[in-house]
C-alpha cells in the first residue's frame, strides 16, 4: 500500500517535471532569440545545447509516464487524453529545438529594423506556452480551472498572430532579396507555430476537462 502511494507520488512528480520542461524550452527559445539578435552567438549555441538536453529529458520522462500509465492501467477514463496532451506538449519542445537549430544552421542575417520585432514576437509565444502549462497542471489538480487558463492561451495566441503578421509585413517592406525575405518569413512562422500548437493543445485539454467534469 505504501509503495502504491510512493509510486503515485513519483509519477505525479514526473508529470509535473515534464510540464516544467515544456515551459523551460520556450524560455530557452526566447532567451536564445534575444542572444542571437544581440549577436551573442556563443551564448546562443550553449543555449541550444541546453534545449537539446531539455528535449532529451522530456522525451525520457514522457516515455516513462506513458509506460507507467499503461502497465498499471492507471486513470483508465482519462489515459488517452493525458497521453495525447503530453505527446502534443512534446511537439512544443521539438519546435523550440527546431527553431533554434534553424537559426544555428542557416545563420540568417536579421536586419536591424526587425530585430526588436523578433524579440517581441517571442513574448506572447512564451505567455501562451506558460498559460498552457497552467491549463495542463489544472487538468490534473483542479479540472474546473482549466477553462480559465485556456482563455489566456487563446488570448496570447491571437497576440502572437498579430505580432507575426506585423513582423512579416515589415520584412517584406524592406529592401531585401526575396530569398532572405522567405527565410525570415519561415522563421517567423515557425516561432508563431508554437503558439498555434499551444492553442490546439489547450482546446484538447478543454474537451478532456469537460469529459471529466461530466
Amino acid at each position, binding site marked *: 500500500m505504501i509503495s*502504491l*502511494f510512493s509510486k*503515485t507520488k513519483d*509519477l*505525479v512528480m514526473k*508529470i509535473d517535471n515534464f510540464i516544467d520542461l515544456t515551459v523551460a524550452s520556450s524560455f530557452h527559445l526566447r532567451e536564445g532569440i534575444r542572444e542571437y539578435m544581440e549577436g551573442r552567438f556563443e551564448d546562443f549555441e550553449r543555449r541550444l545545447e541546453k534545449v537539446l538536453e531539455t528535449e532529451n529529458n522530456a522525451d525520457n520522462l514522457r516515455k516513462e509516464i506513458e509506460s507507467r500509465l499503461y502497465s498499471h*492501467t*492507471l*486513470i*483508465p*477514463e*482519462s489515459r488517452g487524453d*493525458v497521453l495525447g496532451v503530453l505527446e502534443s506538449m512534446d511537439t512544443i519542445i521539438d519546435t523550440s529545438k527546431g527553431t533554434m537549430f534553424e537559426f544555428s544552421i542557416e545563420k540568417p542575417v536579421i536586419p536591424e529594423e526587425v530585430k526588436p520585432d523578433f524579440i517581441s514576437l517571442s513574448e506572447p509565444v512564451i505567455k501562451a506556452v506558460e498559460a498552457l502549462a497552467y491549463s495542463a497542471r489544472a*487538468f*490534473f*489538480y*483542479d*479540472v*474546473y480551472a482549466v477553462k480559465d487558463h485556456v482563455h489566456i492561451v487563446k488570448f496570447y495566441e491571437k497576440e502572437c498572430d498579430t505580432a507575426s503578421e506585423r513582423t512579416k509585413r515589415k520584412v517584406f517592406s524592406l529592401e531585401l532579396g526575396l530569398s532572405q525575405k522567405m527565410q525570415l518569413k519561415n522563421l517567423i512562422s515557425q516561432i508563431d507555430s508554437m503558439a498555434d500548437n499551444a492553442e490546439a493543445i489547450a482546446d484538447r485539454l478543454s474537451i478532456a476537462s469537460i469529459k*471529466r467534469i*461530466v
Partner: protein
Amino acid sequence: MTAFLFLSSGLFLGWSLGANDAANIFGTAVGSKMVKFKTAAIVSGMFIILGAVISGAGAARTLGKLGSVNEIAGSFIVALAAGLTVYWMTKLNLPVSTTQAIVGAIIGWNFFSGSTTDYASLSTIVSTWILCPVLCALFSIIIYIIIKFFLKIMKIHLLKQDLFTRIGLIIVGAFGAFSLGANNIANVMGVFVSVSPFRPLEIGLMTLSDATLLFLIGGFAIALGVVTYSQRVMETVGSKILKLTPEAALVVVLSTALVMFLFASERLEFFLASHGLPTVPLVPVSSSQGVIGAVVGIGLVHGGRDLNGKVLAKIASGWITAPVIAGIVSFIALFFFQNVFNQHVFTPIYYEISHEVVIKMESEGYDRSVLENLEGTTISGTRDFKDFLTEKYPTIDEHMRNRIISLSEIIEINVDVLKISKELVSGWFTGNQAESILLLNNRKYRHLWRFYDDLISGDASWKLLPATPVNRLHNNRIRAKLDYLKRAFNEKKTNGKS
C-alpha cells in the same frame, strides 16, 4: 444425505446469484480495469460469506413470514422454480431478479399446500421493490453531490484521485459484497430455514445456529458463483452497459450497498429504532434494480439526461412477470414432484379449536359466546380453515380470526431433552433457559403456544418483547431458539387425525 440433496436447488440459486449479482458490485471496477478480477473475486467472495453469516437472518425471517415451507422437498422445488424462472427469463432477455422470483415461488407453494399468504408481509415485500431503487437513487444523488463538492475543493491530483478511487472501490466493494450476502442470502436459503437439516454447531466460544449454518453454506455457493462465472458478466457490465466514471461507479456501489445493508441489518435497524429514526423492513431486495436506481440518481444530478423511461418501465414489468411466472412454475413443479416422484412437498396443517384454545382466547379478552360454538372444530389446511371461519362466522373480525388460526394449529410437541443434549451444554441456551427446558422433559403438547407458555413460566427470558423495531433483534434471537426447539421436538407424523 437426502436433505443435502434437496439443498442443491438453493445452492444452484446461490451460485447463479454470485455469477450475476457480484457484477453489480465490482462490474464497473473490473470492467474499467480499475480493480483486477482476482482481487474482486477474493474480496467479494469473502465478504458475501461474512454478510450472509453475520447479518443474513433479518431478511430471511421476513421471507419466512410470507410462507413457511414445511417440507424440505417443498423448499427444494420452491428454490428450483425460482432458479429456473431466473434462468429462463434471463435467457429471453427479460428483466428478472432472484428476489422477485423467490417471492412468487413461495406464493406458488402457499397455493399448492393450501396455506394462506400473509398479505401484510407480501405488501411489505412488494413495497420494498419500489422503495429500494428509489432509495438508491436518493442515496446516490446525495453521495454524488458530496463527493463532487469535496473533489472540487480538495484539488487532488488526478493520479492520486485515481489511487483513492481504486482503494475506495475495493473497500466499498467489500461493503457491497457484505450487504449482498446479508440481504440476498434470504433468497438463496430463506425457504430452507424452517426445514433446516442442521443442528447448531459449537465453534470455540460461539455457537452457530442451524439457520446460520445454512447461510454459511449458501454464502459459499454465492462465492463459488463469483469465482467461477462472474468474470465475463463483470467485464460486460463494466465496459458496455454502465458508462460511468470510476468516481460515479464508486457512488453507485456505495449507495446500493448502503440500501441493501439498510434492508438487511438487524443491528442497524435496532440502532435506528433506538435513536428514534425511521426504519425500513428487512427484506431481500434486488441489487440489479438498486444499481439502476443509483445510476438514475447520478443521471438526475446531471440534469436527467440519462433518465430512460423504457428502462424503468422494463424493471417495473419484472416486478409482476417474475413472481407470476415463478409462482406458476413452482405450483406445477410441486404438483409434478408430489404426484410423479411421490414426495412430500408439504405437511398438511391441522387445526383444532380445543378447550384450551377457548380458555386462552378468553383470557386474552375475546368473546366466549362465539368461541363456545366453535369448540371442538377440527379442520385441515389454513385456507380452508380461514374460509370456514369467514363463511360460518362472519361476525368474527380479521384480528380474532387470525388469532384463532394461530392458536388452533396442531403441532405435536414431545419434549425429549436427549434430542438437544448437545445444544443444552453448548451454551447456546442460557442456564435458566436450559433449566426451563429440562423441567418440561417428557411432556407432550398439541399446541405450540402451550409449550412456549410453559417455557416462559419456567424462565421469563423466553418472553417476547412488544413487536417494535427496537425489540426486533432481541425477539428474533429468542425466536431462532424457539423455532429450533419446535423442529427438534415436533412429532411430524402425528397429526390432528391421530
